[in-house]
């Protein structure tokens, strides 16, 4: 019985290797395509090293103790000593975790602060306003005055400031290869800086459950060269249809929609992050609220 178990146990690491070799190209988090995801990747790799060390130490100690001190015919008369503890040893294994936690905490805090800011200062970030609705993603480019649904084009090597909000349940905006996620909440605005190093298509999705259509609430991030991006913007401005309030209301209705492109943005008449019901204390029609000013915006920030 025991031997069989050991044989099986020895297969475990082997099967693990097969998994890892077979699936590694799918592990998006471990294939960063931008400085934000790269920061997180480095942090992950740094922590994995320590974790493997801990696992190896504990597993080896565990195996040695079990093999040496298991009950066997030879030690039938052995009566274990009554030891109460060992202060020195206990100090040692309190100190080691403290050291490891410190070694992890310092880069964590650094990275956490760093991710709040764009990764480069010399380039002006592109602002894209993201609205999560049941169950689609709406992207508004206020400076370019264009809007897309369920896909977003960005230029490479330019920090993008995503201003996240939601109409309805709390969603989480996640593009694994570009960087970690952040929640998009109704009546709030959260900011997420991401940046792509190279042109390509990156999967993005909602990571926070929002009901029936949640699973399908995906989007594509297309990173382009700056020229391609500018050309695309110009194209959209010239050829895409205008978004009307009526059209916008149909898009917001719960359900799934395909990709769409418009040559204006819904920010003209409503900004869901500034609905302000939290501050005025009375219900207002969302659609009348476009004019809410920047002073209110500051208040939102303090609430995040």
């Amino acid at each position, binding site marked *: 019985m025991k031997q069989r*178990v050991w044989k099986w146990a020895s297969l475990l690491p082997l099967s693990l290797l097969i*998994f890892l070799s*077979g*699936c590694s*190209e*799918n*592990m*998006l*988090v*471990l294939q960063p395509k931008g400085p934000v995801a790269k920061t997180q990747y480095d*942090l992950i790799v740094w922590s994995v090293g*320590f974790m493997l060390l801990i*696992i190896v130490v*504990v597993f080896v100690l*565990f195996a040695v103790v079990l093999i040496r*001190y*298991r*009950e066997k015919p030879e*030690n039938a008369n*052995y*009566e*274990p000593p*009554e*030891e*109460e503890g*060992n202060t020195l*040893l*206990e100090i040692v294994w*309190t100190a080691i*975790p403290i050291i*490891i*936690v410190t070694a*992890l905490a310092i880069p*964590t*805090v650094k990275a*956490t602060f760093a*991710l*709040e800011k764009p990764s480069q200062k010399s380039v002006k970030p592109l602002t894209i306003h993201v609205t999560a609705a*049941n169950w689609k993603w709406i992207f508004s480019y206020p400076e370019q005055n264009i809007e897309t649904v369920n896909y977003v084009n960005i230029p490479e090597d330019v920090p993008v400031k995503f201003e996240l909000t939601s109409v*309805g*349940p*709390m969603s989480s905006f*996640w593009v694994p290869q570009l960087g*970690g*996620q*952040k929640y998009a909440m*109704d*009546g709030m605005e959260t900011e997420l800086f991401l940046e792509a190093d190279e042109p390509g298509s990156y999967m993005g999705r*909602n990571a*926070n459950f929002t*009901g*029936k259509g*949640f*699973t399908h609430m995906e989007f594509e991030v297309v990173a382009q060269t700056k020229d391609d991006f500018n050309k695309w913007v110009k194209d959209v401005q010239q050829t895409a249809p205008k978004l009307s309030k009526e059209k916008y209301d149909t898009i917001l209705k719960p359900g799934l929609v395909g990709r769409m492109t418009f040559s204006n943005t819904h920010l003209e008449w409503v900004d869901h992050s500034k*609905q302000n*019901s939290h501050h005025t*204390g*009375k*219900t207002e029609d969302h659609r009348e609220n476009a004019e809410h000013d920047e002073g209110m915006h500051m208040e939102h920030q303090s609430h*995040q």
Partner: protein
Amino acid sequence: MKWSEFFVTGEPLIYAADVSIVLTVIGIVFILTYFKKWKWLWDEWLTTVDHKKIGVMYIISAVLMLFRGGVDALLMRAQLTAPNMKFLDSQHYNEIFTTHGTIMILFMAMPFIIGLMNIVVPLQIGARDVAYPYLNALSFWLFFVGAMLFNIAFVIGGSPDAGWTAYFPLAGNEFSPGVGNNYYAVALQISGIGTLMTGINFLVTILKMRAPGMTLMRMPMFTWTILITCVLIIFAFPVLTVALALMTFDRLFDTQFFTMANGGMSMLWANLFWIWGHPEVYIVILPSFGIFSEVVSTFARKRLFGYKAMVGSIVGIAFLSFIVWVHHFFTMGAGAAVNSFFSITTMAIAIPTGVKIFNWLFTLRKGRIRFTTAMLWSLAFIPNFVIGGVTGVMLAMAAADYQYHNSYFLIAHFHYVLIAGTVFACFAGLHYWYPKMFGHMLNERLGKWTFWLFMIGFNVCFFPMYFLGLMGMTRRMYTYSAGLGWTPLNVVASVGAALMGIGFLVLCYNIYYSARYGERDMTGDPWDGRTLEWATSSPVAHYNFAVIPEVKDLDAYWEMKKSGKGFEMDEEKLKPIHMPSNSGRPFLISIAFFFAGFGLVFKWFTLAIIAAVFIILGLILRSFDDDDGYYISVDEIKRTERLTRKEA
């Protein structure tokens, strides 16, 4: 509400469940009637205030809920085995993961732990019952009706479907208009009241009713963990009570605490939920640490290594558990300073936990380790929990957490800590203390089969999920497309889940088999135990101890065995034992709670008010109750003791 909406319709799985529920109820009623067991049921179980019987009822309920939650889990794994499966639709899947999470935490893990603590704690501290036996019965029945109310949702009215975390605004009326989330709010409230009372009850029991000589620092480790757990319950559960009450108002009376409009604040719910929710996971993990400590020390034949450090570390963990809740939503955008603070407090939990792991390893060192089933569960806990623990530290690193959050990496992590921690502990405790409950052992051979099937299945099921998370698979997805490359790992996970299911079935068979053919425990001390519960007979006499033992050491019973003193019973010194009387009122009050809850769920306020009147009536009747209990005569004690002691 129309009658056609009252019963859930349209799903073959639901109809099958309807049929099996009706058949089960008919079966139970038939068996009770045929064997004339109704009076037995009422006298021995429904009205009992005996902590041991209440403990057994908790554990039976927990095993039933493990079955329900496990079936939910298997349905989910079936749906996710292959891409684009059509086995469950989105709505059905959403309901199932919601009930799976809620049931496993609140109606499986909690009652299993509370059941074991009911049975063991009074015995370990040399007491004859808990401080408030009547309240204890009420606690159990409130938990039970809460669990039943929650469990009928899927056939009557519809299941909750907003996740076990029930985040607003999704869980509000606007996005979840049915009665499902009313069930969530009301059922959790009712059973939560029961839990809060249990916390108070055991805190008082442990502080006031220890045998002479048992100072705090001579308490068995399990009792220590329960004491700290009670403190956690008393501080954490009121938060849940308030949060659920506000949720109930929002859902039933259209208040706007957590809504999007009119000044509501959905983030408030997330904060309140996790201010309760994080201590809650320690409420189920600390007693598990206690169980492992007892089992490891017994089967290594050694005193627990570093007892003082063990006590210190659980106190430390309990304190830290209240200042880490924000790590459940680092991604809410609270800012770098806040996230950094909660990152560090969360990682700090690894320090006392690490101390415990090493102390267990050093308890084993120089021991003589017997691999009983209880011990196998406890040993397996160490490596598996370490995997869950280190990935927990990874999740605690805020900047990295943005990549793990809500992904299968998180799912793998918390199943590794909750299953390898709590579930392994429940199984270890079940095998270890089974003779104390029923007077016979669980079969070791079948027990080991369960262990290997379940433990290997658990790793096969959850280890791949770490990688699914890194691939970008998020929790609560009901399906995925083939091109993502997630299929192989999902197939593996489902195979693992099936193995766990088989392991559970073997456990159920073991319970049946052992009841019929299991080895009777005549000694009261089958494992060569160290603490006072092994000084009693198996099953334990109604009054636990004929004479309250005197405690001289940490491992009180071990000390008695070594010194050979403390066993002799001077029949002349026996005194009549004062015991509490049975009462049907806790059961009846709880039934009233059930109807009040049911009325609230469907907004049938007349029913709710009538039931509430009965609840208040029960409270008033209790206030005028002058039944002081009864005395067991010396003759009867002598008779019982001679019987059990002769057999020994």
